[in-house]
């Protein structure tokens, strides 16, 4: 599954999803009256600011980063939960940048081809609906001609596919544990046989033993249906287990995209290195994590130039001034770092 010698992005012809210069800014100003009285200016949060990547069919691309880096916003932009401020999203050759806000029949043809799995298994299922109704919802919408008996059968199949029993369909979400609810979420996402799944931290609310079950299930389903995943996580170890390629995000931009093996063996961007060093080691070598100085700055007031420069040991004058672009490096890696570009790193 893992390409050790991945071709450069955009050069492969079987690209399922491509995003180009994706940006989403949120207006986080105080209300109008407060601004007037406090003489405050409008404030913009650039949650995502110029993100480009592409995902090949059948591949898992992971977005990793700390809180506030914009990874969840990217996910929501792609599935059309937010409108774009700038940029373009292409799904299987079709421009879906204007998807947000469109609903119903006009976009059903495209919407039924991708799905999303959410982080919080306790909030992602309507508490008043039976599991049957929850999983059947996409079917009712996309296949209105399906008889209720057929739908019922399909829901039963789906439940069994995710390791539950068809009889569970008659119960309500509160009767299930977190892991089981996440299975129900997955069953709902699978209902309409999508090709592409956006998974927003699907296991970060789960216990490790349950996480293992869900990750295994997701891998099995990927193999069975040839699913393509955009997998979002803050956990480097989980990402390493799941992803073919990894994009490291920091404050709304991509710091580095690399094939998984490449990133873990040879991280190029100073931030990627720090993230890897910060993962606690379980091998018992007693090795201390190397310390990253400082914290992620407030994204409303990001540092100038390369947003990472205040925490970067290799920063110099140019980094404060100029925002680095993603530049292709060896082995299919792309890095946004002046130091790497200049060969100092």
């Amino acid at each position, binding site marked *: 599954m893992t390409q050790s010698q991945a071709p450069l992005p955009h050069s492969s012809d079987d690209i399922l999803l491509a995003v180009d210069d994706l940006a989403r800014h949120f207006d986080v100003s105080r209300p109008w009256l407060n601004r007037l009285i406090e003489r405050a200016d409008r404030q913009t949060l650039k949650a995502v600011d110029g993100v480009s990547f592409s995902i090949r069919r059948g591949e898992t691309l992971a977005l990793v980063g700390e*809180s506030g880096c914009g990874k969840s916003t990217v996910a929501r932009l792609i599935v059309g939960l937010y409108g774009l401020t700038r940029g373009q999203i292409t799904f299987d050759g079709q421009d879906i940048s204007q998807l947000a806000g469109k609903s119903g029949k006009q976009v059903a043809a495209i919407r039924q081809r991708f799905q999303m799995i959410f982080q919080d298994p306790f909030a992602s299922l309507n508490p008043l609906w039976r599991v049957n109704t929850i999983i059947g919802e996409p079917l009712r919408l996309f296949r209105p001609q399906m008889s209720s008996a057929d739908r019922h059968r399909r829901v039963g199949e789906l439940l069994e596919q995710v390791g539950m029993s068809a009889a569970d369909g008659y119960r309500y979400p509160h009767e299930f544990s977190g892991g*089981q609810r996440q299975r129900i979420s997955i069953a709902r996402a699978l209902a309409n046989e999508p090709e592409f799944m956006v998974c927003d931290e699907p296991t970060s609310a789960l216990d490790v033993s349950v996480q293992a079950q869900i990750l*295994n299930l997701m891998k099995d389903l990927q193999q069975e249906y040839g699913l393509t995943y955009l997998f979002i996580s803050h956990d*480097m170890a989980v990402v390493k287990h799941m992803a073919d390629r990894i994009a490291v995000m920091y404050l709304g931009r991509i710091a580095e995209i690399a094939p998984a093996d490449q990133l873990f063996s040879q991280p190029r961007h100073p931030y990627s290195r720090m*993230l890897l060093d910060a993962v*606690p080691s*379980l*091998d018992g070598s007693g090795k201390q994590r190397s310390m*990253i100085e400082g914290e*992620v700055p407030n994204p409303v007031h990001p540092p100038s130039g390369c947003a990472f420069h205040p925490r970067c040991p290799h920063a110099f004058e140019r980094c404060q001034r100029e925002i680095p672009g993603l530049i292709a490096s060896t082995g299919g890696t792309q890095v946004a770092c002046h130091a790497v570009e200049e060969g100092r790193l």
Partner: protein
Amino acid sequence: MSLTQNSAERPDTASQREDTTAVLSVRNLRVEFPNRHGTLVALDDISFDIAPGEILGVVGESGAGKSMTGNAVIQLLEPPGHIAAGEVRLSGERIDNLSEEDFVPLRGRRIGMIFQDPLTSLNPLFSIGDQLVETIRAHLPLNEKKARAKALDLLREVGIPAPETRLDSYPHQFSGGMRQRVVIALALAAEPELIIADEPTTALDVSVQAQILALLKKVCAERGAAVMLVTHDMGVIAETANRVAVMYAGRLIEIGPVDDVIQRPQHPYTEGLMASIPGLGARRERLYQIEGAMPRLAAIPSGCAFNPRCPHAADRCRQERPSLLATSQGQAACWLHDPVNPVARRPLQETSS
């Protein structure tokens, strides 16, 4: 500073001390939640000690009772939960039977507390300095000026840059990591013997997590405070704790030196748990998975609570509950380690499908 060296020693020595020198000693603790359908046993027969300067990690999945153990020690169990049996001793002195009135002075003074969400531990309406000074003066006989000086020292000690300027800031003006540092400063203010840290880094990013854990480790070693570190994260335990106690369904199932438990877990549950954690090492196609889920408190199986999920389970495991049995390094509550007639170990399949 001898305490610093103390904590650097092999943790075994600490664990094998006499009970009387342990800062915290919990014996056969049982917590019950009576409800109208019967009585739920939330914690059953929990025993452990924490020596001065030692960090005991208490690890388990949600519902295992790890947080409840901490709450039982500081008598913050949610009603109708109560300690039904066993005893808790703080430096040899029994504290589980104290009334709320007598217990209040202990919290903060002799037992410091650090919780997951720093925002809930800090009062948003008071400046950091005021909160520190108030806490210090509530517990120590210092005047305002001296308390303020001590607050400054504390902030400096927990690594708040330019503490003079931050003393008058309010909690919302700090970042998450800085807030947790302040909470640690608050917990240390009265120089407690014991610190209970319940998921202190769960709300923080990995990079900040490392900073906070290093800080916790350092200040506790310097002061010789015992720490009970409650977390679900084995990684946190691995790099912070000296010993680790693994909990399952309200029971303590394995306890031992941290490296041994992580490298060579003796209880099949710990073993499965460790194998199910994705690592940064060689990539596996599938993770090991423990089938099923932890039982609810109302439906704990007879015998060993883990038996329905255990690959080695034998008839004995379904009937007889094992107590903590000595293993090569620590103790595990599993019949595999019965000195007389151990249950046979079946080979583990690497993957299950």
